[in-house]
């Protein structure tokens, strides 16, 4: 892997603006991704969605402690560091969500008795943090060359008091929303890998959000593809 090579890829969603107020309905904020920016980890990525930014480093497959080793597959560890303060119970809960999502896509059976460590650092939080963490983790795993059966992406939906759906909400929209739903979807069949929700909502609203998230995930996957194509075509 060439040290110090940066690929800056920027992409715009179909109807979204680069920054500033979005149109009503479904559109994602401007996102950007940089890979291979840290020299020590085997893979690293920085993902920005609007003003939310997360930096991820991946180490692996590497040596694992005997107490943690699994005989037939790789042990995945996730560490999430908040921007300020010490990691608490909420971070542990998010680490479990991210870890289980990665475990579902990473082909651990190809590297038994090894460990793959994903370290996430929150640089800035302006809404949709968990989705940004998932996207950054996926890009970093790709950068590290960890074998995966599919890519995954995170999408956040917010439902406000009158039932309007907003995708990729800002921090202000999240606070005022009645419910905030975060989904992780895989790239092969758009199946639901992970879901975590806040607030009260009905069954029909859930299906609506899931459908909107599946459409939005297409933009994210297209962005991944373009960004990787640009990177490998340069070399």
């Amino acid at each position, binding site marked *: 892997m060439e040290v110090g090579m940066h690929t800056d890829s920027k992409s715009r969603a179909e109807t979204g603006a680069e920054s500033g107020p979005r149109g009503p309905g479904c559109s994602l904020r401007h996102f950007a991704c940089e890979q291979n920016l840290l020299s020590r980890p085997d893979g690293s990525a920085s993902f920005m969605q609007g003003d939310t930014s997360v930096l991820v480093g991946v180490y692996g497959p590497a040596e694992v402690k005997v107490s943690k080793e699994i005989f037939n597959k790789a042990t995945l560890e996730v560490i999430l560091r908040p921007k300020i303060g010490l990691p608490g119970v909420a971070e542990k809960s998010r680490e479990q969500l991210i870890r289980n999502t*990665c*475990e579902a896509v990473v082909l651990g059976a190809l590297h038994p008795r090894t460990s793959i460590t994903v370290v996430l650092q929150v640089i800035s939080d302006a809404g949709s943090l968990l989705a940004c963490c998932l996207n950054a983790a996926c890009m970093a795993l790709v950068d590290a060359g960890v074998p995966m059966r599919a890519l995954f992406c995170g999408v956040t939906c917010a439902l406000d008091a009158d039932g309007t759906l907003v995708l990729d909400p800002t921090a202000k929209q999240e606070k005022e929303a009645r419910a905030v739903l975060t989904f992780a979807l895989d790239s092969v069949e758009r199946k*639901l*890998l992970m879901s975590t929700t*806040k607030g009260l909502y009905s*069954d029909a609203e859930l299906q609506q959000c899931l459908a909107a998230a599946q459409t939005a995930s297409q933009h994210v996957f297209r962005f991944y593809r373009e960004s990787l194509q640009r990177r490998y075509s340069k070399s």
Partner: protein
Amino acid sequence: FNTCFRTVEPLEYYRRFLKENCRPDGRELGEFRTTTVNIGSISTADGSALVKLGNTTVICGVKAEFAAPPTDAPDKGYVVPNVDLPPLCSSKFRSGPPGEEAQVASQFIADVIENSQIIQKEDLCISPGKLAWVLYCDLICLDYDGNILDACTFALLAALKNVQLPEVTINEETALAEVNLKKKNYLNIRTHPVATSFAVFDDTLLIVDPTGEEEHLATGTLTIVMDEEGKLCCLHKPGGSGLTGAKLQDCMSRAVTRHKEVKKLMDEVIKSMKPK
């Protein structure tokens, strides 16, 4: 079946049962284990409940104390849940600081309380800006055999229904709180959130209420928390194999029936507690 086969090839052993649409303990794929609940067993707590879901046993104790309300919300009290998974309940837990599973369960219960608005925090305020109740809800698992989240949610709900808070008046002259232990009121429980957990097997099959062994063999888990109007408080799917929207719909309908079963059980228990 030979017990050696179960130890050597647990997944294959399970698959043989799943093919016949049942499980080794004789249950159907959509059947819950026997649920029992016992309320008010801890006399030193302000409210308590013991829930057994098959072998999984969780006890919840609620203690009420005084505290100053938060400065950014002077008319609200606090509800502080904590889930403890001690080495007593299973060999996979060691003594020491709470492990990941306990922390995740605590966060889950905190989210359920917050999302479902089971208690209006304003009801816990005694004197705005000066005094409010804080309810410490401690959930301790006594026996771990899978599906800890369902048991904890049910135990919390039953314990909160059992909590009686004494009346508190602020004496205007001394500005001290006077507690009248003779006059106690039940909490105003606004909704009844009920959790239903599923385990995903081999990316396609969904089974309800997994035991400890089933959770270990499963490729994913899903927990749905629903209240009586069919509104969802929480859809907790921590990774694992993917699910389609149609499969989620099936889970929703099962969660609705489970809510009815649990509500009926709760009402029976509360009725039996009332003095005749």
